[in-house]
């Protein structure tokens, strides 16, 4: 009796590849289901895309009937005397274990994995789009630029050389000339320039209609840190979404207190706050810009406004009127009211007032906590598909 030895395989197959991919898919869909919690927890806002965040994963644990720990277990000592009553360790707190280990603890139905912010944002936006997009004149927006295979050519880039086709061409030429495709006596197989075949690619451009997104934010004195944070979170998501999904949708930033100004992206996300609130000023500014640069016949207009609704009473009728006008020229006008819970002073609300606008393309949401940001964002952008269901 002696063993049989089999040498190492030259090119071992990566046998678990398929199952790993499947597992990653499960992780991904688990993330998608819990995205609202993750966003609320991790505050990805403003983080650079390659940063890693820890994300709890649910639903891909494997369950069995197991015992809890109401009865004793046996361990062995490390040499020193053990006495009854000695404390030999602590129970692991759920969710505080090392990545991948928390799941071993009974009853904890999630473990953590690391995902980078970039991937997280991609997952978030997977099934959202700007609603009610209409075909306008002079469609100019590229939504997709795709490179596709399209036949073969004699000339091309070296990397696109198709070796198999080239050799076939060469053999064909040899056969035509010599009646057979045998190699020359000296063993060489020279190629002619005409033998070369390159894969040809063309670029396809998909165009969609023009669109512009207005981000209107209240930067008055009543917008404290929390409110500011909530509204910026909302606009950050909006901006990321538009920038990622549409190659050239235009975004206009408007900040207002009692006066409105068009600002740059940087200013918009970092601007300090002061002054009172004339909501109408923001809308007027937007209307002005629309009249100036984005004619509704040519452009799909989307406007979103975040405010704490603490408007000067005298301005409210104007605000309603301006909002109505804005509804007329835009595909969707969304108003998000930021009212953190327990803010103590509960100021006036515009949501009630805006109810009477009654335009089909007007939407309001109430954002009370950071957990609300994502659902309200989704409510705006998946509106039409929910209607369709």
């Amino acid at each position, binding site marked *: 009796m002696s063993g049989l030895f089999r040498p190492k395989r030259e090119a071992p197959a990566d046998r*678990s590849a398929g199952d790993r991919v499947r597992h990653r898919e499960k992780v991904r869909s688990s993330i998608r289901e819990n995205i609202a919690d993750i966003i609320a927890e991790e505050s990805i806002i403003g983080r650079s895309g390659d940063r890693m965040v820890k994300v709890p994963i649910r639903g891909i644990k494997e369950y069995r009937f197991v015992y809890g720990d109401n009865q004793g277990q046996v361990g062995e000592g490390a040499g020193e005397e053990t006495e009854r009553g000695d404390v030999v360790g602590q129970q692991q707190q759920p969710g505080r274990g090392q990545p991948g280990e928390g799941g071993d603890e009974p009853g904890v139905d999630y473990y953590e994995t690391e995902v980078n912010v970039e991937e997280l944002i991609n997952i978030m936006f997977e099934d959202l789009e700007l609603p009610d997009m209409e075909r306008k004149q002079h469609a100019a927006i590229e939504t997709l630029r795709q490179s596709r295979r399209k036949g073969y050519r004699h000339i091309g880039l070296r990397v696109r050389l198709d070796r198999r086709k080239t050799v076939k061409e060469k053999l064909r030429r040899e056969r035509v000339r010599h009646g057979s495709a045998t190699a020359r006596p000296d063993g060489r197989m020279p190629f002619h320039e005409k033998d070369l075949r390159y894969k040809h690619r063309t670029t396809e451009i998909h165009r969609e209609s023009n669109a512009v997104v207005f981000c209107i934010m209240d930067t008055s004195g009543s917008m404290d840190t929390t409110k500011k944070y909530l509204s910026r979170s909302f606009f950050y998501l909006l901006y990321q979404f538009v920038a990622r999904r549409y190659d050239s949708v235009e975004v206009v930033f408007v900040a207002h207190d009692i006066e409105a100004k068009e600002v740059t992206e940087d200013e918009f996300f970092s601007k300090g706050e002061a002054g009172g609130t004339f909501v109408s000023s923001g809308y007027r500014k937007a209307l002005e810009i629309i009249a100036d640069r984005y004619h509704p016949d040519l452009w799909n207009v989307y406007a979103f406004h975040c405010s704490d609704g603490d408007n000067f009473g005298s301005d409210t009728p104007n605000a309603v009127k301006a909002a109505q006008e804005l509804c007329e020229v835009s595909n969707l006008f969304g108003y998000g009211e930021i009212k953190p819970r327990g803010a103590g002073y509960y100021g006036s609300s515009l949501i009630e007032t805006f109810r009477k606008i009654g335009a089909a393309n007007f939407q309001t949401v109430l954002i009370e906590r950071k957990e609300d940001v994502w659902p309200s964002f989704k409510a705006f952008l998946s509106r039409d598909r929910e209607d369709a269901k």
Partner: protein
Amino acid sequence: MNVDLDQLKRYDERITELAMAYGLDCFEQEFELCDHNEMLGYMSYSGMPSRYPHWSYGKSFEKMKTLYDHGAQGLPYEMVINSNPSLAYLMADNSVCLNVLTIAHVYGHNDFFKNNFTFSRTRPEYTLSSFKSHAERVRTYVEDPSIGVDRVEYVLDAAHALSMQCQRNMAVRKVPQDEQRQRAFEASLPTDDPNRSIHQAQEYIEPDLRRIPIEPEENLLLFLRDYNPFLMDWEKDLLTIVHEETQYFIPQIETKIMNEGWASYWHYQIMTNLDLPPELRLEFMVHHNQVLRPHSGGLNPYHLGFTMWDHIYKSHEGIEPADHRNATAGKDAIFQARESERDSSFLRRFLTEELCQRLGLFEYGTNRNDYVVTEIADDIGWRQIRESLVTSVGMGSIPVIKVVDGDHEGKRNMLLSHSYDGRELEMGQAEKTLGYTFRLWGRAVSLDTNIAGEEVRLTYDDDGFAAAERAA
């Protein structure tokens, strides 16, 4: 690093020579060389060269690879399959000493697989081919356009959750339903009473012979397969496959301590008699002590098993061990035990007070968030410690849950019963697992168990999970 195959073969010849002289009785042994990535691959599929696809194997690969890459966990020195011929893997990156040690260790396992009674029904000649056939069948279902990977996983996920709820001891014959019915009928007949003329007539209780199952059924997957009329053939086949693969692994679960102890015991005997060059000898001692070090607070099966085998041998031989080549009382004792015991019986028979003390065994329980020592191995406590070990090793760590009624309340609901022995079920897991049972049964599933001294019935139906106190 390129491994010197001829050198390993030379060592192997001397190892097998010694193993035979010691009386080890092995299947033919095959070794396959691989790198660490392949090793991780084999590990995630329990060593099988071919296994059906499922995401859980990908998960286990990722987990092991992460631990390995971060140096938190080394790779096992040995990975050996109970098949005939037996198949083991050697890592080409390992040192010569480590590979020689692995070879010696593998022959110990091989002998155990061939001779221990728990493995007697595993049919090792068919191991590789049956796993391969399972893999092919599952792939067929995955590729079938009318089934597809999602539906296959839907069933497999649920089947995996229940797979351990099966027959524990394959040496016990499974009584078919007909026979059970016959048995129930005979039990209901009045006993033969020679004095029946003066005794009061026994009351006849009609047995319920239509009940399914007649006697509580422990093979949950097979019961679901046989009594859920709405399962498709391919779904039934998946349940069969998962059941069969679990049955294959149960003997290994049941003999972990004995098996690892046995292999360690023999690799030690072989390696110390192999006349290794001094530097290899030293390296061997380092590896040996690393594998056999006690896991403080836990339980290292290699260490526990090795210590016990050594103790059994020495207690029959006096202090000085004799040469293993000659038949002795100590050798007879260990070879008998390796044939007829499994972990629970092995511990009950051979774990003495002296051993408990030498191993520093203690029992611990939870008190709020602390693990507190409840018993130590003194002359009072050691029996409790042994008892606690005996009930928790091998399949003892899996709750016993049986089907008692397949047509509960006449609604084709299922009633399961947990044989409560003082250990409570973990509720979170029980809820999910009951959900999987419901998925495969298609009707409400209830489970009777005990929680904090109360008799409780857990139910999973269309409305989800619910727990209620059981009416007396």
